[in-house]
């Protein structure tokens, strides 16, 4: 009877009793949610245009963040100013992500065109291993601090008093949410309005047809891997600002897996809605169910269990296309 009360009634009593705290929980969930959505978008873009599940997305986040911090540390003694160094390091890091996209296409993907999907998937595991090794070799394995201030990301906090209570929004979280929203919207506009975006959608829809109208595989692949790189950099900056820059950052990409299970690997809107939903739900579950009932730390597994339960009822995911095969 007590368990019944703890599971089904008590959490809601608490939510109702302390609405300001509930808002705080929702906000924290939203912050992670938009970041999951952003990362999931990186997966979706690459999968749609090449049928490759990019295992390296996570390490790309680490690599981008490491490059940014590394370049910044390297540049500061030369230019003598933190902010100028950051202003130079940022475009240079973008350049590195572009070079990475080009090399991946040239060295890994192009020779494997036409091979089974699983081979390409394994190749991305290879890329992951390479980037781990290369990253440690160049930047060292120790943890680093994201150059939050030099990048001009605000670090204060905004306070509200909703329902006569107390709500605290960290400014860098606000920045993360705004940046993620801006990135997602510009990606959507790019995909739906521009000729390049149309080419990406076309390639995702029908490979042969896309080739026959003269869409070049290489150009589009470089482009989507670069976009994935930009997304990785953005995620690396804001997540690194919260948790520090280390190889452990890689796990944020695996948080996108349940998002993809939910949203479907091919759906852009699925990635966005799925990401936000998982971010919110896992936070709310952690606070109101996880900590009292399981002793906390449920965020590591909640999303996966949730996605599995959804898949039991909707095997194609929430937004995936139902495949009806004519036999």
């Amino acid at each position, binding site marked *: 009877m007590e368990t019944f009360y703890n599971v089904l009634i008590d959490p809601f009593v608490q939510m109702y009793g302390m609405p300001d705290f509930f808002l705080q929980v929702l906000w924290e969930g939203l912050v992670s949610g938009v970041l999951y959505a952003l990362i999931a978008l990186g997966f979706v873009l690459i999968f749609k245009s090449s049928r490759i599940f990019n295992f390296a997305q996570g390490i790309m986040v680490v690599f981008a963040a490491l490059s940014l911090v590394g370049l910044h540390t390297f540049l500061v003694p030369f230019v003598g100013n933190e902010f100028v160094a950051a202003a130079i390091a940022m475009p240079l890091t973008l350049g590195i992500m572009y070079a990475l996209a080009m090399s991946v296409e040239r060295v890994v993907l192009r020779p494997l065109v036409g091979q089974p999907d699983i081979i390409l998937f394994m190749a991305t595991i290879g890329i992951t291993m390479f980037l781990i090794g290369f990253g440690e070799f160049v930047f060292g394995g120790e943890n680093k601090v994201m150059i939050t201030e030099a990048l001009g990301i605000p670090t204060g906090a905004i306070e509200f008093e909703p329902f006569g209570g107390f709500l605290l929004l960290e400014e860098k979280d606000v920045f993360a949410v705004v940046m993620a929203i801006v990135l997602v919207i510009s990606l959507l*506009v*790019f995909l739906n*309005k*521009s*000729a*390049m*975006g*149309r*080419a990406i*959608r*076309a390639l995702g*829809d*029908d490979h*042969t*047809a*896309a*080739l*026959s*109208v*003269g*869409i*070049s*595989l290489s*150009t589009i692949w470089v*482009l989507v891997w670069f976009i994935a790189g930009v997304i990785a950099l953005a995620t690396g900056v804001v997540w690194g600002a919260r948790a520090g820059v280390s190889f452990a950052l890689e796990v944020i990409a695996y948080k996108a897996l349940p998002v993809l299970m939910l949203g479907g690997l091919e759906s852009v809107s699925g990635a966005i809605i799925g990401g936000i939903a998982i971010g919110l739900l896992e936070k709310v579950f952690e606070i109101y169910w996880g900590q009292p009932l399981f002793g906390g730390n449920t965020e590591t597994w909640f999303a996966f269990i949730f996605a599995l339960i959804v898949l039991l009822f909707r095997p194609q995911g929430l937004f995936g296309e139902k495949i009806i095969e004519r036999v």
Partner: protein
Amino acid sequence: MTVMDPTLEEVKKRAEEREVLLDLENVSLSFGGVKAITNISFNIKKGEIRAIIGPNGAGKTSMLNVINGFYQPQEGVITFNGEKRKSMKPHLAVSQGIARTFQNVALFKGMSTLDNIMAGRATRMKRNMFWQMLYWGPAQQEEIEHRKKVEEIIDFLEIQHIRRTPVGTLPYGLQKRVELARALAMEPELLLLDEPMAGMNLEEKEDMSRFILDVNDQLGTTIALIEHDMGVVMDLSDRVVVLDYGRKIADGVPEEVQSNPEVIDAYLGVSH
């Protein structure tokens, strides 16, 4: 035969006077031990409608795939517009002016008719990637110009009413027409049609025949087509090449080919 019909000699003479657009010389293609095409030579002349026929598995589609760069032949020389071709990629074929349609419609099913046809202009979009990512200024201007051209094609093929419809939901005959529209959007010099009338009813076939003739006539596009409906082939084409088991068994104007005993054997089988 009425007086107005040109004689066989006249037809042949007219065909010979035309300039060669695409020339294939001793082309062979194999997949491992399977020989898809063996030592085939023929040409396609400017402004003609050239039919490629033959029983199933004769190598017709492989031939088209070689022409537009999906397959690389192991042997042989291909000359397009006077230029000898080295290695080939489909997108290069498009920028040289070769467009195609497929046996089983290959459209972007989730996209609208308009988007499908606009995608056909991919190689004609010259503004670089970063302008396009911004979708600003020159890129937007360019989009508008291309849109005009696409609207002309839509009018030409009478598909105004399905502009905004996702093509996956269209009936088969219309899908084939959208595919033709997309190929035309590339403004090709050579248009390859792989069974443009497969699975169509009589009325749809007549419409499609009319469009093919119009494209050839009004736009001056050279057309190479694979088709199984012999009535259509004989009516539409200026010259016919016949393949069987990856070899060429006949080549000439329709009347010649029709009366060729080897062709009749290939189609009807020989008694042994």
